[in-house]
């Protein structure tokens, strides 16, 4: 069960790579803050990934016959936090890698070390959760994911202008 969740989240990222390729230059001409471009892109990517998850999670629960409903709240929180974490970093990096030589290759290489930690926390916590363990056992991981999200979203907002300035 835990591995399938890892797989689904990883698959989402693959979609996300394709999502983010063009139209940056046009946006830069617009009279708005650079960081709001980043936030816009982040939200767009999040919407997309959430869409895939909305289809994927119920299907997984159905096929693997997992009782998801009793744990729905914490589970959604976990998935959301993990998704925000790696999409935030991914969006920032894709703004850089699209302009480098081997863009498609470089993004996964750069993103991997930033993606696996939140994913592995989420996967472990999901495993505990679905095994019916008390919620207090996963609070540590939820906190860690939340801190990770806050740190990297803030960081990305500040760093994004540096990646697009000419």
């Amino acid at each position, binding site marked *: 069960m835990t591995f399938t969740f890892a797989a689904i989240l990883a698959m989402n990222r693959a979609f996300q790579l394709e999502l983010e390729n063009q139209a940056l230059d046009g946006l830069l001409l617009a009279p708005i803050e650079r960081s709001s471009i980043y936030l816009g892109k982040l939200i767009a990517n999040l919407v997309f990934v959430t869409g895939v998850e909305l289809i994927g999670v119920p299907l997984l629960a159905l096929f693997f016959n997992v009782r998801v409903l009793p744990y729905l709240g914490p589970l959604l929180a976990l998935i959301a936090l993990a998704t925000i974490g790696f999409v935030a970093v991914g969006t920032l990096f894709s703004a850089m890698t699209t302009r480098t*030589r081997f863009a498609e290759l*470089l993004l996964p*290489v750069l993103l*991997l070390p930033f993606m696996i*930690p939140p994913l592995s926390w989420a996967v472990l916590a999901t495993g505990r959760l679905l095994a019916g363990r008390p919620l207090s056992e996963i609070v540590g*991981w939820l906190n860690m994911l939340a801190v990770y999200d806050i740190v990297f979203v803030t960081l990305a907002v500040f760093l994004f202008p540096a990646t697009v300035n000419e």
Partner: protein
Amino acid sequence: MRMLQVGRWLTAIGLVLLAGVYVRALSYTPVEQTQGLAQKIFYLHVPAAIWAETAMILVGLASVFYLFTKDPRLDRFAAASAEVGTIFCVIVLTTGPIWGKPIWGTWWTWDARLTFTLFLFLLYVGYLLLRGAVPDPAMRARYAAVLGICGMCEVPFIHLSVYMFPTLHPMPIVLQPGRPKLPGSMLTTWLLSLGVFTLLYVGFVVQRYALSYLREQLEAAGEVGHA
């Protein structure tokens, strides 16, 4: 160039002292009771690990200041520190399995700490790849700085997550709250080794820094020559 010379001397002294530390570790430091001689690698493994993580943090700090000041020296330092950090990471990832084979009975296991050290290594590789992939120097410096800062913020998470996973890896016995749980003579050897690794880090970074400075000078001269 004088800087290159200084770097070479520092490295040479560091290497000689490293041999000295090992003489001390092997002949004058007591053998650990349960692990036997395998524990000796600890004097190499832990200082290298500390410097592998510290180097990433230094890359990040240099990157932060680079983004504010746009001083090329900081960028050069960040690049040098990242390369040396990669080497130290390689030392950690090779000495670890050498110790793991007799003690755990396996070279490698997908344990939290091992895996995250591998990610630290991949982080360095990604950083160096990114530097290689951007031709324009100013853009390269900015991109590398962004990645360096993200890398620096990643290190505490990697470090802390060790405490949250069930792990085979021995818990820290020197860098921990309270007194180090290490007999005095071992601690002395370990501290000497840490000092030597610090010297080696500085020596390597100074050399790399000087080399990249020379290369930039050369490229600038080459461009002038072509024009």
